């Protein structure tokens, strides 16, 4: 078990270090996410009440789009230099590759969200500070589920033709429960949870995370076979 974690950590650290040195993904992702929010605001119109009501949905669609765009890179960058092949050759548990990549994607996505939520607060005139912890919790749970499913399908599609198109086609339908739960929980916190529904949505989010995580971890070695 400790071996698994050591390998996971090594891959996570490698990915983060590359990102830390180049910052190529993070900058582009933050900009992209902000752009999506902006586009939505233009599409919906300048009515602040309407925007505030839709803020949860807009935020999560922006997160999902940004995450999906960056996911492909996670395995493609390995593939270019033959890194994935090397990782396959290393002895030991291949699930570590999945876990490491998942965590790297998660950290990156959370970093983007740390910028995105305040930006959304300004754009949509929402005071997020009173609910900062709650929103952070939802962000972590939602992003974990997204990274799990996303990393899994990114590994699956890396060898496909037209993989840039195939990845969202597989990921988006799989994300619908997560999106529903995250959007409704976020909206509930922002707008006030009059009906006490947030805890129910959080439970669904946790259930989704656990189920998809277990299945993806369990089946991942098959995805990586040559």
């Amino acid at each position, binding site marked *: 078990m400790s071996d698994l974690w050591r390998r996971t950590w090594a891959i996570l650290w490698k990915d983060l270090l590359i990102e830390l040195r180049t910052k190529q993904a993070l900058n582009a992702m933050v900009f992209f996410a902000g752009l999506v929010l902006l586009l939505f605001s233009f599409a919906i119109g300048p009515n602040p009440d309407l925007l505030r009501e839709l803020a949860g949905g807009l935020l999560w669609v922006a997160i999902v789009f940004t995450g999906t765009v960056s996911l492909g890179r996670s395995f493609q960058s390995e593939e270019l230099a033959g890194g994935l092949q090397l990782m396959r050759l290393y002895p030991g548990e291949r699930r570590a590759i999945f876990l490491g990549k998942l965590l790297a994607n998660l950290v990156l996505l959370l970093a983007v969200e740390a910028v995105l939520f305040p930006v959304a607060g300004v754009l949509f005139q929402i005071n997020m500070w009173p609910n900062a912890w709650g929103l952070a919790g939802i962000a972590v749970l939602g992003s974990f589920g997204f990274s799990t499913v996303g990393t*899994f399908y990114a590994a*699956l*599609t890396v*060898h*496909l*033709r*037209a993989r840039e198109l*195939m990845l969202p*086609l*597989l990921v*988006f*339908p*799989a994300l*619908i*429960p997560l999106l*529903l*739960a995250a959007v*409704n929980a976020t909206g509930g916190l922002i707008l006030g949870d009059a*009906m006490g*529904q947030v805890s*129910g*949505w959080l439970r*669904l989010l946790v*259930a*989704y995370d656990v*189920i*998809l995580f277990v*299945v*993806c971890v369990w*089946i991942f070695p*098959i*995805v990586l*076979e040559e």
Partner: protein
Amino acid sequence: MSGAVRGRALGWVAFAALLVGSAVALFVVPADAAQGEVQRILYIHVPSAWVAMLSFFVVFLMSALYLVQRRLRWDLIAASAVEIGVLFTGLTLALGMLWGKPTWGVWWIWDPRLTTTAILFVIYVGYLLVRSVSEDPDQRARWSAVIGIVAFVQVPVVYLSVFWWRSIHQPPSSPRSMASEFFLVLMLNFAAFTLFYVYLMMRRYRLAKMELELELQEPSRE
């Protein structure tokens, strides 16, 4: 040879059963008192949905079997089942809309069952798309099997989430209680559709086998 004869015989039996089922549903059983003639769609709508679900369950089983035994035969059966499942899911949705427009006044409502069916449709279309862009038969089989299993796991989660989403706004449509003669006709159509499904599966699997043979013979492959 006897296999082909048996297949053809099954085809004729399925065809006859569909004919009888449709005739009874259209002309013998009385129309619903409240909904009128349009209610007769039920007799093909519900069996279509049943065949779709059955199909996706077959996909799950065959995917798991493929991953255990790694025989392409299971992959071909799974792929055939997905195609037929998607076809019947689409049919179910279309028939539901035809019924919904005169009954509810709209083509579509965000009812949990409708929404889940639509999501199911896109999930398995994704499966077919991945198949269409992968070239190596073994790789394709492996990826398909993985998607077949994960997709099946997603279905209950999707249903639960959509149910919660919608049940906040309105109660889901509840299964109506039926008169026994209606129920009998429905069962007849269930049987007919299931026979037809088995026949379709046999034909599609045969085709899939031939496609694979052809693919393996192609000169472009090494």
